[in-house]
């Protein structure tokens, strides 16, 4: 069986304009889009460039737009696109570097901005017992889903707000902030709130919810962002009343 795969190419050293190129790819029931790209690169056109590694939807490298929808190339299969055909484009809302490779820097900057690490309750971090903190399965449950983000960036390609304003810190970063805020071992919420409360924070979200639809790990960033709005509202109210330390 063969399928025509059309790819939006961009070779900045040759032309400033992107162009479309089609390749005929053999497939069977297990051929993923990533397998198709590998086939093209090795057998048809070595200049095609894309990111990939794990092949099992956990490293987050291979995000693309497939017929206009953000997806991971490794866990969608050609067998499901026989009728519709297949157009691959680089992830939306990010600057394109070459072919299917986008510039991830803004995504990483947003992640870093929310202090996505455990800020411990002890003021001196050097004071550490060598025993684990207690955390019940119920406490773990509160944030576990939000800790499953693989940083693939698909939710940013889905987010119309990020498309309009790349300064919006976006679904994945807000989710990560929320993950730590919900962790009973963490005491860093006060440090994260200014970013979440800011103009580029949770309130930029207009709750379209497409981020959760495209998330390949069912992290549900839309829920995290909305819960953050509640936290943010409480936080703002408390600060107005002077109740926040």
């Amino acid at each position: 069986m063969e399928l025509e795969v059309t790819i939006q190419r961009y070779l900045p050293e040759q032309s400033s304009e992107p162009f479309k190129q089609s390749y005929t790819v053999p497939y069977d029931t297990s051929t993923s889009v990533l397998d198709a790209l590998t086939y093209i690169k090795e057998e048809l056109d070595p200049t095609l460039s894309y990111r990939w590694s794990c092949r099992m939807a956990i490293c987050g490298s291979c995000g693309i737009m497939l017929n206009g929808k953000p997806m991971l190339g490794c866990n969608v299969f050609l067998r499901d696109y026989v009728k519709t055909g297949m157009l691959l484009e680089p992830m939306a809302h990010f600057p394109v570097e070459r072919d299917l490779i986008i510039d991830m820097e803004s995504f990483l900057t947003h992640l870093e901005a929310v202090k996505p690490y455990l800020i411990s309750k002890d003021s001196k971090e050097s004071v550490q017992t060598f025993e684990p903190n207690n955390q019940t399965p119920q406490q773990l449950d509160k944030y576990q889903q939000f800790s499953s983000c693989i940083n693939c960036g698909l939710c940013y390609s889905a987010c119309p707000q990020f498309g309009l304003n790349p300064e919006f810190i976006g679904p994945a970063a807000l989710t990560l902030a929320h993950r730590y805020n919900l962790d009973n071992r963490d005491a860093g919420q006060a440090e994260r709130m200014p970013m979440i409360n800011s103009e580029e924070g949770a309130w930029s979200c207009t709750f379209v919810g497409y981020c959760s639809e495209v998330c390949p790990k069912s992290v549900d960033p839309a829920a995290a962002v909305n819960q953050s709005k509640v936290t943010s509202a409480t936080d703002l109210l408390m600060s107005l009343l002077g109740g926040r330390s």
Partner: protein
Amino acid sequence: MQQSDFDILVVGGGGAGLRASIAAAEKSPHLKIGLVSKVYPMRSHTVAAEGGAAAVTLEKDSFQAHLEDTVMGSDWLAEQKVVDYFVRHAYQELVQMEHWGCPWSRKEDGSIQVRRFGGMKVERTWFAADKTGFHMLHTLYQTSLKFPQIQRLDEFFVLDLLVLDNAIAGVIAIEVATGELHLLRAKSVILATGGAGRLFRFNTNGGIVTGDGMAMAYRHGVALRDMEFVQYHPTGLPGSGILITEASRGEGGIMVNKDGYRYLQDYGLGPETPLGKPENKYMELGPRDKLSQAFWQEQQAGRTGKYGDSDVVYLDLRHLGEKYLQERLPFISELAKAFVNIDPAREPIPVRPAVHYTMGGIMTDAQCETSIKGLYAAGECASVGLHGANRLGSNSLTELLVFGRLAGEQAAENASNQDFAAMPALQEQSSKLQQQLAALNERTSGESWVEIKKELLITMEEGCGIYRTEAGMQKTLQTIRELRKRYQTVHIQDKSKIYNTEFFMCLEVGFGLDIAEATCLGALERRESRGAHQRLDEGCTSRNDQDFLSHSLVYFQGQEAARLEWQEVDTSILPPAERAYGDAAKSGDATKGAK
């Protein structure tokens, strides 16, 4: 060429590289650390580890017991004092991860939950559902953001080490996004570049696991040690090789052949344990080498089933029930559905062995330093001596932490007492490399790296698979040497500078060819069967301590054939004994007095 200086450079942004960077930053906060990786750190293959990380945790467990399991698992080819250091530092590292926020799975009372794992006599494997590596990697990456002195060079591909008078002086790298060369000068360098599983066609590894760091150290005269020991994981998905965690057996999954028979009882792992009652070191909880070998035997006997073109056996998890699978093994349930269209709650998963882990690697001493001063190695790329002839599942995630931390601290100490090497000599080395790269770029015809890679993968599978023969390995070694010759005139079609991924894939094949030779030479010269290295030749089918209780060391000789030496193994704590599992272990004396 751009030039910059770092006190410490860490090459590789996976678990070991991140842990090393954090350790160095904590030990000596004034040092400038460069973390260089050919991908973004969270893409590193640590991310795909599923099952867990081992450390002595329960009352009934002991350091001695963990040491015995590891040494026995290694078929007595582990460095025992290294193992001893490892088991004593494992727990504190996992607790450290907990303090950094790692979402370890818990018991009802909120304490840490441990699970069973193959070859371990006591439950001691910490886990975060079945995405342990993912959670560890992201926890480390996120924690590293707290340290401004760790400067990341994401998507920088390291080409070569700079070495002067047998001391490390830095590395040369290319910025993938621009194609620009960088001379990165450093006082200490830590290699944390991962294994070389992509030398084999059928593997569980990501595309980036190409052994770059091993090849770079090897080309500068550092020995590659015990490379013949390549771990086949018994449960990869047919076709893709995608990993189905050993934890599925730890949680009670069983292995059956096409007749529904639990064949492992016929391979020294029995007697059969009751369904839903897994027992440590019996049946499905035997070590990986034994299970993969049992598959091969079943295949030869015609008792395997078929999935597509692959011969398979079956991993049956149905009795665990949907809810338990969702709680403990959600990721592999998702993978089985996506990649083989099987719901493990309803049908057994077809599986077959797939290359998973490189036991050997860059030889280091017990402090992670190589034979080049100031050059360290940690994690899968290194051979610090922990795994010997066979690694036990869940020892390597802990290894990343224990030895990543140690390498980071050692590198920091070295960097504090060291000056930068003089620039002119380094520039000279860099220019030489620049000329070689230019030659590759200018070549318009010649050998295809794709063809060379394909032939390499096929020959490695044929000659260095689960069972090996003299003739098979001779042929493979010959083929590798021919491929190395052909690689001299390799060419690439893509001549651009921006994200020239063809160029990097071509270089990775070059690294792979050198490591493949070391692997095959070690295998050929080891005329015995031990751990993951099993031979079918007469006189070589069993362990031979008299002649081969030694590490293989392979040295690079340029375009000439590589050279092999033997190195004594440290057996000072646990003298060699029979390696036995299941009931067979009861008659053996290996674990006598263990408690």
